[in-house]
């Protein structure tokens, strides 16, 4: 395969960036997108130039480290696929491929295609946990959880925190990430005790760094784990509930 790459190059956070164009003539359609970039970098190193910096780790779509804006789509043209699981067979011979880093105020560019996603960690630190005594492992199925609830919580927990939702959102909003990280706890019995506090803390931390939701639905299309914007609605409901409810009564029964 023959592809022309327009790659974003930026020396550091404060310097202005630019696009560099590279031509690769002998790319195999079986290569993953990141392997294709590896080939590019080997060429650049051989030629004595600076290789393109990009993030990757597991390369099997489960760690959330990789993430590139490819031809104007977060993680590229394939649905439900992280950048590392995208293969060159999704492109045609002779294609021009534009590669940009995630763009959001919350994700400053470190170098080239690498961004710093620290605000996602700040959201998790604000409440993405349950406080529970550790000790002997409880018996399995001790706490009954309806199947539909367990499935929904698992769907939310599939979030790998890659930041594609923020990158795809025209408002740079972190709502899909935050709602997934909230709801995989808020839906389950173990998460009920801290449900309202967690929701307020995580939402308000999110709002310090990210934009607000206008219901475009771009995030759910970009998500490599196909997390639904339904979770954003659940988050909104829980947040307003947290503002309205008499917290003394939350321990009784909380639908």
């Amino acid at each position, binding site marked *: 395969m023959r592809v022309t790459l327009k790659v974003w190059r930026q020396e550091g956070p404060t310097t202005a960036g630019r696009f560099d164009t590279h031509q690769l003539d002998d790319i195999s359609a079986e290569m993953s997108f990141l392997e294709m970039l590896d080939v590019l970098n080997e060429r650049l190193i051989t030629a004595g130039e600076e290789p393109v910096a990009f993030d990757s780790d597991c390369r099997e779509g489960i760690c959330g480290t990789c993430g590139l804006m490819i031809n104007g789509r977060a993680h590229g043209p394939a649905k439900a696929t992280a950048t590392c699981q995208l293969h060159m067979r999704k492109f045609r011979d002779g294609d021009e491929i534009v590669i940009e880093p995630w763009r959001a105020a919350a994700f400053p560019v470190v170098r080239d295609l690498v961004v710093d996603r620290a605000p996602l960690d700040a959201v998790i630190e604000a409440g993405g946990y349950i406080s529970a005594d550790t000790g002997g492992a409880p018996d399995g199925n001790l706490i009954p959880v309806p199947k539909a609830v367990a499935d929904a919580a698992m769907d939310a927990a599939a979030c790998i925190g890659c930041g594609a939702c923020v990158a795809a959102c025209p408002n740079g*909003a972190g709502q899909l990430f935050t709602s997934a990280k909230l709801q995989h706890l808020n839906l389950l019995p173990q998460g009920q005790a801290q449900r309202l506090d967690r929701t307020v803390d995580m939402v308000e931390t999110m709002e310090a760094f990210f934009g607000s939701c206008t219901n475009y639905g771009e995030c759910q*299309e970009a998500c490599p784990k196909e997390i639904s914007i339904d979770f954003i609605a659940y988050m909104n409901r829980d947040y307003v509930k947290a503002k309205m409810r008499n917290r003394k009564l939350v321990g009784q029964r909380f639908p």
Partner: protein
Amino acid sequence: MTATQQAPDQPIRSLPAAGPAVKGLTPNIDVPAVQKRPRRPAPWPLDLYQTAVGKKWVMAVSGAGLMLFLFAHMIGNLKLFLSAAELDEYSAALRELLYPILPNTVFLWIMRAGLIAFFAIHMHAAYSLTVMNHRARPTKYSKRDYIAANWANRTMRYSGVIIFAFLLIHLANLTWGWQFLDNDQWVFGQVYNNVTTSLSQWWLAGIYIIGQLALAPHLFHGSWSLFQSLGINSPRLNPLRKGFAYAFTAIIVIPNLSFPIAVVTGAVR
């Protein structure tokens, strides 16, 4: 591979530090906050409006209120097709709502106050969220391929501004009777006469049609997305939300378009 060692010494941007900056994972990178957190939370329930999720909730509630108004307004307008006496009697009855209990026009003014409040708060929330969103996304992509975003939701800001401009012209034309619209035959209380004489001017009818055409996408996106903002979401309900949005938009906009068209073509005179 990464450039951890080569990051420069100064923080990345000198945006006004709006709130707590987060220490980036990479040395020497701070991510500044985009939204200022209030130093002291406002008393309940105003504290809800200090957050973006709360503002969206308020936008949805006020939008739903304005949708109810639009529906009632459209139903009342249909009297145009009955007779002049019917329409004039309807408008007089609006002033006399709850008459024996309250003095004339008092209830009308209560409803008007609610409408003005809904409009004001809807627009303020839209403005402040837009400012926040621009701050959260200062750099555009050189190439962007939208998948889900459509024309209706990407033009909400612009259609909203057009609707507001139309609203002012509409009030000047039929409520205040301003002469600059060639309203020389405007008479207080003679609604049928005022509508037919003013909207028989093709350019004014055109403004009405443009206003309604801007309302259509705004109403479509709003009447779908208010469910998300209010957190009304269930597997049984979700398949109906888009259908409701299409149906509600059609129920409002098609009759509203028929009024200026009927007058300007002479079907109603």
